C-alpha cells in the first residue's frame, strides 16, 4: 500500500492532500503485506512471459476455445448483466460492433475486458475525487481515503491485467469498457452528493468482482487464473465497504463512517450489510469479449 503512494504521486495526482495521519499510518502498516502479494503477482506474470510462445493459438483454434469458454461463463451467469440500465441489448450491440477476435486468444480477450473494467474504475474514482464531497475539504476523511486508495488499487489491477495481456501476445487495453462507459457518463450529472457516488462505485465494483469470479472458471491459462483470483476478492472487499457506507449514509448516520467506527453506536443490521451473499453471484458478470480490442 505504501508502495502505491510512493509511485502514484505525480503532477496530476488527484490525491496530493491525502491525510497521512491515522489513515496514512494504517496504509503504511500494510505495506509489507502488500509487497508480498505484489511479489506473488509479479512471479505469476513472469511465468506468463515464459510460457508466451506455447500459449499462441491459431485463429480457428482460438474461436473453438472461445466458444467453449463462453459456454463455461454462461454456466455462471444468470439473468441480466451489470447495470441493467445498460441492458443486454446494449451489450449485444457493443459485441456486434466489436472487431473479430480471431487474432486473440480467449484468455487475452478476457484479460483485455478485465483491463477495460479497471480503466473505467480508475476514471470513475478520479472523477469522483474532483467532487468536493468526495475528494475535497467537505468530504468524510474515511470516504476520501477509501476513494483514493481504491483508485490506486484499480490502477495496479489495470497494470497487472495489461502486463498479462501483452505477455500473452495481446495488445494492452487502455480504453474503458464501451458499454459501461456510457452508463457512467450518464450517471455523472447526477453525482450531487456522496450517496449517488457510492451507488455508482458499488455498481462498478460488484460488476468487476462478478466478472472476475466468472473469469477464474473461464480462463485456460493457469497463471492468468491466479492473477484474476487474486483480484476478485479485493473487488469484493470494496463492495463490502461500499455497502456499509451506503447503509450508513441512508441511515443518515455519516458520523459513523469512521476508522475505527463507534461500534457500540452502529445499527445492528450494519453487522451484516456488507456481505449479503454466502456465495458470490455472477449474474452481473460482463461478457468476456465486451472490453476486448
Amino acid at each position, binding site marked *: 500500500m505504501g508502495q502505491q503512494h510512493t509511485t502514484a504521486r505525480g503532477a496530476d495526482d488527484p490525491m496530493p492532500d491525502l491525510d497521512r495521519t491515522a489513515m496514512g499510518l494504517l496504509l503504511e502498516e500494510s505495506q509489507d503485506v502488500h509487497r508480498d502479494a505484489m511479489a506473488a503477482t509479479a512471479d505469476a506474470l513472469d511465468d506468463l512471459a515464459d510460457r508466451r510462445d506455447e500459449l499462441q493459438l491459431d485463429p480457428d483454434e482460438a474461436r473453438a476455445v472461445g466458444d467453449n469458454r463462453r459456454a463455461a461463463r454462461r454456466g455462471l451467469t444468470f439473468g441480466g448483466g451489470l447495470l441493467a440500465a445498460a441492458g443486454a441489448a446494449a451489450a449485444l450491440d457493443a459485441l456486434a460492433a466489436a472487431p473479430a477476435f480471431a487474432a486473440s486468444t480467449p484468455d487475452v480477450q478476457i484479460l483485455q475486458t478485465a483491463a477495460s473494467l479497471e480503466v473505467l474504475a480508475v476514471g470513475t474514482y478520479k472523477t469522483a475525487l474532483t467532487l468536493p464531497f468526495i475528494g475535497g475539504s467537505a468530504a468524510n476523511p474515511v470516504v476520501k481515503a477509501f476513494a483514493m486508495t481504491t483508485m490506486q488499487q484499480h490502477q495496479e489491477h489495470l497494470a497487472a491485467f495489461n502486463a498479462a495481456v501483452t505477455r500473452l501476445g495481446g495488445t494492452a487495453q487502455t480504453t474503458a469498457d464501451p458499454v459501461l462507459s456510457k452508463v457512467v457518463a450518464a450517471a455523472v450529472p447526477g453525482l450531487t452528493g456522496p450517496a449517488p457516488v457510492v451507488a455508482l462505485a458499488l455498481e462498478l465494483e460488484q460488476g468487476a468482482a462478478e466478472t472476475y469470479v466468472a473469469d477464474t472458471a473461464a480462463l485456460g491459462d493457469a497463471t492468468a487464473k491466479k492473477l484474476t483470483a487474486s483480484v476478485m476478492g479485493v473487488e469484493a472487499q470494496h463492495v463490502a465497504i461500499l455497502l456499509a457506507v451506503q447503509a450508513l449514509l441512508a441511515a443518515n448516520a455519516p458520523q459513523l463512517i469512521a476508522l475505527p467506527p463507534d461500534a457500540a453506536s452502529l445499527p445492528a443490521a450494519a453487522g451484516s450489510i456488507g456481505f449479503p451473499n454466502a456465495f458470490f453471484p455472477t*449474474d452481473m458478470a460482463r461478457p468476456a469479449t465486451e472490453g476486448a480490442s
Partner: protein
Amino acid sequence: MKRRTRPQPTMAISEAELTSLTAELDELHHDVGMPAMQTALSRWTEDLRTSRRGFLIGAGAVVGGAVLAACGSSSSSSTTSSTAGGPGSGSATLTGDLAVAALAASLENLAVAAYGDVLTAAGAGKLGTVPPAVATFVTTVKGQHAQHAQAWNSAIMAAGHPAVTGPDKALVPTVDRAFAKVTDVTGAAKLALSLEDIAAATYQSAISAVTAPSSVKVAASIQPVEMQHAAILNFVLGQYPVPNAFSPLTGARTLADYRG
C-alpha cells in the same frame, strides 16, 4: 439495476428499516448467489455420481504458509474442541478435488465452531459489552460458513463418502489456545480475522489446485465472501479494510498438513 434493491440515497432510514433491508439482501442471496453456486455444485456432483473416481491432484497441491502465526500459545482449551467430531470415516482417503473439498469443509466447520464459541462466550458475559452490530456480524457469518461447509459436503457425499463434520484437527489446538486468551470483542475479532484470512487464502490456492471447472466455480464463489468478512473485521478493528491490491496466499492450508 434490476437485481438489487438499493436504499433511497437521500432518505434517512430507521434501524427497523435497515434490518428489513438486510433481510431483503439475505433473500436476494437465496435468489441470486445460491442458484449460481448450486448450478456449479450440481454439475460437480453429477460428474461425481457418473464417475465416482474423484479428481486426481497430488497432496500438497494447495500451496501453504504459516497458520495462525499471530495466535497465542496458551495451553487453555476452549469449547471449540468440543465440536471436533472429526470428519466422516474415509475422508482421509479422498484424493484430488474431493480432498480439497474435505479440507475446505473442515475449515468451514472450524469457523462455525469458533463463531459459535464467540456467541456462547458473549452470552455468558465473558466478552464484556457486545455491540449489536458485532452480534449480528457473528451470527450472520457463522451461518454463511455453515452454508459453505454444506456445499462442500454435498459434493463429498455425492461421491459416496461421508460428510466432513469436524474441524481441521491440525488447527483446533492453535485456535483453542488463541480463544482461551480472548477476553473481549476486539480479541474475538482478531481471532476471527485470522480464520477468515486463512480461509480466503486457502480458497484462492484451491482455485489453481482443483481440476474440475465446477469445483473452481464453487471455490471462486466462496473466496470473495471470506474476503468480505475480513474487510468488515478489519474495519471494526480500526484497520484499513482493504489492505492489499492483490489478495495474498499467506496462511493458505495445504493438503499435506491437513489431518482430517
